[in-house]
């Protein structure tokens, strides 16, 4: 079942680069990452690529395969014809470091800006009690493996470097949603979501949900409910009045 596949892999660095052609053996059941590793071991020892678990759990080996943002470890070679050229390029939304490795520090900077989780106090017996149904909403977002494919595909930043300062991207909008829905958290991040993290930039085209390898419904279950909550707060006359007369704290 072994055959020779045609691969085109982007090689280069911040200065520039180009697609290189390779012919490389493919065995039954293999994924794109196996083939990239074979290239490393036999034809291009210094080919730069990130990877860790090779099982779709760590989100390290993100790339664009035939133009689509995907995990290399979860893209089976059987999804391509044997005569089809497979093109592997680095994530376009982030600056290239070398070959398939990009500088994803944008994501770590945004993560650090999000107001931290702040729990209510424990019950008298030292436990927190929560119902399964209440934790499941946030659990969906905590499945996120931080592969940043959603960030890569989001048109707000994909070709708009200038928006990065004011938009955190889908990954961190669902982080905000996760905290907002967290049964124990007591901080209100709705103003921040809108003003600092650019919730309003998202016009719910759902591209992020489509590329999520964890099947998280970022838009439907995270971003849209968060937008609704922000709107509630902005136009809730009681909240407005309460804040004005000082009876209800703003946060």
């Amino acid at each position, binding site marked *: 079942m072994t055959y020779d596949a045609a691969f085109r892999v982007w090689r280069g*660095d911040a200065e520039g680069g180009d697609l290189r052609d390779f012919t490389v053996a493919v*065995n*039954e*059941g*293999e*994924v794109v990452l*196996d083939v990239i590793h074979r290239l*490393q*071991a*036999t034809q291009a*020892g*210094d*080919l*730069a*690529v*990130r*990877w*860790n*678990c*090779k*099982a*779709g*759990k*760590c*989100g*390290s080996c993100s790339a664009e395969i035939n133009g689509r943002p995907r995990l290399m470890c*979860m893209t*089976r070679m059987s999804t391509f014809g044997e005569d089809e050229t497979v093109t592997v390029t680095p994530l376009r939304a982030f600056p290239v*470091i*070398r*070959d398939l*490795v990009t500088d*994803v520090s944008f994501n*770590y900077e945004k*993560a*650090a800006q999000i107001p*931290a*989780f702040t*729990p209510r106090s*424990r019950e008298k017996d*030292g*436990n*927190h*009690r*929560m*119902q*399964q149904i209440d*934790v499941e909403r*946030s*659990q969906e977002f*905590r*499945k*996120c*493996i*931080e592969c940043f494919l959603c960030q890569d595909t989001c048109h707000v930043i994909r070709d708009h470097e200038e928006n990065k300062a004011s938009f955190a991207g889908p990954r961190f909008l669902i982080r905000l949603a996760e*905290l907002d829905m*967290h049964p*124990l*958290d007591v901080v209100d991040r709705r103003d921040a979501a809108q003003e600092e993290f650019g919730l309003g930039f998202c016009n719910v085209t759902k591209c992020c949900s489509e590329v999520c390898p964890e099947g998280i419904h970022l838009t439907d279950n995270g971003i849209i409910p968060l937008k609704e909550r922000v709107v509630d707060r902005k136009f809730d006359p009681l909240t407005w009045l309460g804040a004005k007369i000082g009876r209800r704290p703003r946060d």
Partner: protein
Amino acid sequence: MELEKHEYDVVVVGAGGAGLRAAIEAHDSGARTAVVCKSLLGKAHTVMAEGGIAAAMANLYPEDNWRVHFRDTMRGGKMLNHWRMAQLHAQEAPDRVRELEDWGALFDRTPDGLISQRDFGGHRYARLAHVGDRTGLELIRTLQQRTVALGIDVYMECTVTRLLTDEDGIIGAFGYWRESGRFVAWQAPSVVLATGGIGKSYKVTSNSWEYTGDGHSLALQAGATLVNMEFVQFHPTGMVWPPSVRGILVTESVRGDGGILKNSAGNRFMFDYIPDFFRKETAETEAEADRWYDDKKNNRRPPELLPRDEVARAINSEVKAGRGTPHGGVYLDIASRRSPEYIRKRLPSMYHQFRELAEVDITAEPMEVGPTCHYVMGGVEVDPDTEAARVPGLYAAGEVAGGMHGSNRLGGNSLSDLLVFGRRAGQAAAEHAHGCAGRIELPDDALAEAGRAALAPFEREGGENPYTVQHDLQQTMHDLVGIIRTAPEMELALERIAALKERVANLSVEGHRQYNPGWHLALDLPHMLIVSECIARAALEREESRGGHTRDDFPGPDPGWGKTNLICSSASDGGVAIGHQPLPQMPAELAEIFEETPS
């Protein structure tokens, strides 16, 4: 030489569960703390842990307590564990799990709203706090977010190649940025190793590229000792097909949640492999085993939930006897025993993994599984209360430390180990740093020498490709120091390792220093060889079978060996020396726990 220098009180090497927990504690103890990790933050191997965190919280079984957990852990390790580590672990695990909730973790719940707990091999009661089958991800994300919230410095994609010492102990560490290849040194009186394991020395493994034994090797070279290195855990259930995914973990939760093992004849063969040591607590019939899931009082545990060493050996024997599946494994069947809804709810990532990678629907058909190198019980010999190694200022926690798990680790005891001993190591490392008056300047000659050694593979031309050498090492360890061992094979392995060492000394790499995986591998290989030598030498020395060490030529346990630890240290010729050391004896009040008959 271009070199970036930093100063800290505590430098933690590794950003998995143990490293991050250590860093959080060191920071909270007032130490200026840095974490250095080979991958991006949040990608460490802890993320792969599936089943859960073992802690006797008694949320489902009020009968559970630290004494039962301690007993299970010691028996699972065939009594070779350091009793004090097993005790601290069992006592402190529940608090370590609860504090994760204060940092944002969201575990699955019981009907009362408490943290739910699941059954696992070797644990008397349902004890594993979990989030579906992605508990490791929850653990790492929680600790990562806490680390970020505290503002701890993290050096991502940065590899430590040397520990720097003077006559009084640790003074710092040296390494390189993977991204640029530039050198960096940290001046620090305390270093915590939390580098994980060694699985990449084996061909079939559940471990990622990072598991090259760096911490084990760095500790040895700095003058510390390693204990129990002969004990390597082969997880009974790794994927076996297709070939490219061979070794990827299939969580023990499949069995904890009702899955059973069958051979090609359809027999539930684990009933034929119940050792005398566990006979009293294991079900005798399929009917009893099936009743146990709902009624633990009146029934005993299914043999599929024996400790991992027992199950792995049984699968190995079935396949050898010709009763394996077409791809050389056995069947793991949950499809015929639980509803598709239950399976998808309890085991979502297994469902996903098999559907995507093997085109198998685990709610409709059995999985094919076989043993895969998963975990090393052996590691840096540490003081149980402080995780201090024999070199002052050096600490080790998590998989890189030894002693806690004896000859075999129970599932679920790893995540709790990371938290309990990560915290203790961070605390002790901070305390040590506070006691160190004044900084010791890193000597220029040591830094220059570390830099030269790191660049050597670029200087040589026409040498061998590091990937080929790695492949040959993996094949050697797989064939000769694997799950079943004999003296002649291990002697041959040691000869091959010696030859591989010479080849490693002559490697060359192409390209330049910027993000060059070939170069990185060339620098990891010496670590892999030292660790492999430790495993092979200790395994050759221990002439008995116990836990994760099975000798075909010495098939049973030996009472004398049951009181002996093997200690690896660095020999003057750069090789590995082996010494015998008596096992620490537990006090009478703990020994009594093993007299009690389980109710």
